């Protein structure tokens, strides 16, 4: 291309020397107008004539070339626009897929939760993990490569074109008009000296990612091209890595474009007005494109993000290319244009990028209409291959047991506090009746008091560490059992040393390094001759029940000088007691479980055993039928027992019959707790998990893996807070955990 002027000049000069009647001109242009003109006078070849002819031809060729060039540029602009469009659609699709994946994930979680709550088992639905979004796709780097190259060639080409035209004699005005036209078509401009400053500026902002200054910038320019700038804001969010270069390129063009716009404004008021109108119109078009809900084409366009189908809005796009005139949107994906206009969108995206695993909230404004507003669009999107499975079976899934949904989904417990300060297994724990305070008893000979409001920032943000505010020391040897009085003023602990220690509860705001106050230990109950394994306190009776490996169950009335007011099972007629509890609806009665498998209801006044709920089991297998824990329902005459053989059994206190029996865990069930309202049961097991059960349906509503194993033991105790939404578990791994 560059040689042409020179070649033309050379061709012009030798021609006269040849001198002979050259037929080539006539042959070369038999059908063209100049040719016809010449062929009318075939014999009159003069040097000036030939020269004129050649010049004429040259000019014509150049005209044609220029025309082609323009056409080519137009086509390239269209290609670029369509590519931009495609990219936009792809972004849109990516965004939608991502949202759908989030929804899918949430749904799966919901399902799993529901299933767990309902059946007590993990729902096996394949791997369930957060959908990972790689925002960088290899495709991205390919697509913009074209436009970038073509931009360079355009600039060169334009430069050349200008040269040609000047040589041919095109006046500057014509040239200006033409170049104006070309520019307006391409939305590009030739290199202008002062453009670099602003470009650099913007480049800096884009690279630095300083969105606030960008926004500021955007506001400054809003009058002229706020929308374009907003789009850039969005682009900044959406692009990274290799993309960035291209974006800058585009931005550069965009800035130049703006300047042109300004020029237009100065030069031609009318044109400027027209431009603004155009801009608005175009943007409206894009709005329509994005938000169209009935538009089948729009839906299709979205789903065909792979770029193979272009027939969608072709005519529309054609129209828009014309309209686009002065708006450089060729590289800006229209799909993201209108979402970018809502200011919240930007922050949404930033949030999404900062923590990619975080569920992304729906952007406000038009974006929302994709999913919330339009069933049609949603369905067409969901029709995508990898998402096909999530819509339809929804209904069937949810329909089979709607009524219990409300109940089952009421609460999911999550680990919140980790109580680490014990040196050995935590055997028991109990909550304060009102305050967010609990006491733990450990095999390290101590009890510790914890205030959940005094937390220490933990290493991992998921749960908080709590440090104990008080350490109770009196037991010589492991502490095995613990109970807090119902008014929260005292607590009692039983140890392997056969003693029961009676403690005054220190204030929840006690300074952990305050001087020792001996009055915290209110008293010691001596009476048992072996390890004290179970304690229960009744607020209404102001009395304490204990059971010991010495075979006895004892009733204590703390304030009295001789606190032991009753002894049961003195002759070990039922075996060794393992656990005791006051009966919730009748504190004059108590229930005790035994190593033999017996559960006996005692009348505390008469010291008589009223009822035997469970008979001794065959003792040929060691620990067969061994009961680890017995609790009484707080309001109903129901007794619940946890068995070494993985069962939980429910008994009717009136008839003594077994109401329900279930294999509740994978290993020995060690602990039980009933929530204060009597709706849920919690069980802990040496299988390392705690489970929550709906007492009504006897279904597991949640399972939490809470503790590690030490030897063959894992979880020793579980507890509900009597008045607050806390549950806790104590484990052999020397930890206690609180869930909210």
């Amino acid at each position, binding site marked *: 291309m560059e040689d042409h002027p020179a070649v033309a000049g050379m061709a012009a000069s030798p021609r006269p020397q040849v001198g002979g009647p050259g037929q080539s001109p006539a042959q070369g242009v038999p059908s063209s107008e100049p040719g016809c003109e010449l062929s009318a006078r075939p014999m009159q070849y003069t040097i000036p004539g030939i020269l004129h002819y050649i010049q004429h031809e040259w000019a014509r060729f150049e005209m044609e070339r220029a025309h082609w060039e323009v056409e080519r540029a137009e086509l390239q602009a269209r290609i670029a626009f369509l590519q931009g469009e495609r990219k936009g659609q792809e972004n849109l699709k990516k965004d939608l897929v991502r949202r759908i994946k989030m929804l899918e994930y949430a749904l799966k979680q919901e399902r799993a939760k529901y299933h767990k709550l309902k059946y007590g088992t993990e729902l096996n639905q394949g791997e369930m993990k957060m959908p990972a979004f790689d925002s960088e796709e290899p495709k991205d780097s390919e697509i913009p490569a074209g436009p970038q190259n073509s931009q360079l060639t355009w600039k060169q080409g334009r430069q050349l074109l200008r040269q040609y035209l000047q040589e041919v004699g095109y006046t500057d005005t014509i040239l200006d008009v033409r170049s104006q036209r070309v520019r307006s078509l391409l939305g590009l401009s030739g290199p202008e000296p002062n453009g670099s400053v602003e470009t650099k500026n913007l480049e800096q902002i884009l690279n630095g990612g300083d969105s606030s200054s960008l926004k500021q910038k955007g506001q400054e320019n809003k009058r002229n091209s706020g929308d374009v700038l907003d789009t850039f804001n969005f682009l900044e969010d959406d692009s990274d890595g290799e993309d960035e270069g291209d974006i800058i390129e585009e931005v550069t063009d965009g800035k130049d474009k703006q300047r042109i716009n300004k020029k237009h404004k100065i030069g031609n008021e009318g044109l400027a007005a027209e431009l603004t109108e155009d801009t608005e119109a175009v943007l409206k078009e894009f709005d329509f494109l994005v938000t169209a809900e009935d538009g089948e084409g729009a839906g299709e366009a979205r789903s065909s993000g792979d770029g193979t189908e272009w027939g969608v809005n072709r005519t529309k796009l054609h129209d828009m290319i014309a309209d686009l005139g002065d708006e450089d949107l060729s590289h800006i994906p229209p799909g993201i244009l209108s979402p970018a206009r809502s200011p919240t969108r930007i922050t949404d995206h930033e949030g999404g990028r900062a923590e990619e695993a975080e569920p992304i909230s729906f952007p406000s404004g038009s974006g929302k209409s994709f999913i919330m507003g339009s069933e049609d669009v949603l369905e067409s999107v969901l029709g995508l291959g990898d998402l096909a499975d999530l819509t339809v079976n929804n209904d069937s899934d949810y329909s089979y047991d709607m009524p219990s949904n409300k109940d089952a989904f009421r609460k999911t417990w999550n680990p919140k506090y980790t109580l680490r300060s014990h040196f050995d297994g935590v055997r028991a724990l109990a909550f304060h009746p009102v305050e967010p305070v609990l006491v733990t008893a450990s095999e390290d000979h101590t009890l510790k008091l914890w205030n959940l409001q005094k937390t220490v920032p933990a290493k991992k943000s998921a749960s908080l560490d709590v440090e104990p505010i008080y*350490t109770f020391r009196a037991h010589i040897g492991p502490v095995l059992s613990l109970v807090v009085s119902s008014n929260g003023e005292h607590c009692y602990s039983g140890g392997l040393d056969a003693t029961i220690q009676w403690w005054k509860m220190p204030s929840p705001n006690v300074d952990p390094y305050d001087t020792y106050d001996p009055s915290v230990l209110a008293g010691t109950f001596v009476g048992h001759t072996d390890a004290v394994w179970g304690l229960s306190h009744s607020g209404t009776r102001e009395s304490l029940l204990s059971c010991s490996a010495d075979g006895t169950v004892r009733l204590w009335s703390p304030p009295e000088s001789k606190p032991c007011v009753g002894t049961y099972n003195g002759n070990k007629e039922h075996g060794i*007691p393992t656990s005791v509890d006051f009966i919730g609806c009748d504190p004059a009665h108590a229930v005790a479980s*035994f190593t033999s498998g017996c559960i006996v209801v005692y009348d505390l006044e008469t010291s008589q055993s009223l009822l035997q709920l469970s008979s001794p089991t065959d003792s040929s297998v060691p620990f067969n039928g061994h009961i680890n824990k017995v609790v009484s329902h707080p309001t109903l005459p129901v007794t619940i027992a946890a068995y*070494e053989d993985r069962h939980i059994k429910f008994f009717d206190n009136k008839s003594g019959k077994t109401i329900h029996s279930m294999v509740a865990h994978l290993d*020995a069930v060690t602990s039980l707790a009933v929530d204060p309202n009597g709706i849920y049961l919690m069980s802990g097991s040496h299988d390392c998990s705690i489970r929550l059960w709906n007492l009504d349906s006897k279904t597991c509503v949640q399972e939490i893996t809470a503790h590690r194993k030490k030897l063959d033991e894992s979880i020793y105790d579980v507890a509900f807070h009597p008045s607050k939404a806390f549950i806790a578990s104590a484990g052999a791994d020397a930890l206690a955990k609180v869930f909210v």
Partner: protein
Amino acid sequence: MVMAEGTAVLRRNRPGTKAQDFYNWPDESFEEMDSTLAVQQYIQQNIRTDCSNIDRILEPPEGQDEGVWKYEHLRQFCLELNGLAVKLQCPAIDYTRHTLDGAACLLNSNKYFPSRFVQLFIFHYLVNRTFFFGSFEKQGNYFNTGIILLNETFLCHRFTKFVMKYNLMSKDNLIVPLLDEEVQNSSARESEA
């Protein structure tokens, strides 16, 4: 699992277990301990078996990371000192309690001991604190009780040997009552090495 193993011993202290049967089961080799708290289990098992056999207690199993080993031992010291603090009603009770409480918090803090891995600096700090606790005992009025208790469980011997073995403190700083032979033994060992 329980049933499948059949005759396998389940090492559990079930409710109702008598004090004499507490932790009373056949020893398990360190290799068989598959739980994550195996080191603690192993140390406690050796102490229960024969708390006077200090060399065995302090001898780490093959391939055991020394940091974890030391850390677990220190936990065990603090655990046993808990029991001691109960019996001591000496004037240093506050100091004793606070030292133990502080040590407990520190040793259990996953900030300083992520995954129970010992950071040397804190370790030394703790050793010194624990050691001073011992020295307080000595000076207290209930010195004799303290020594008797310490001798009962061989805690003092174990602590001395432990500190010597891992060179956690210089000998001069050890005010904890030492048996002369121990010092000699350890110096002999050191000179051999």
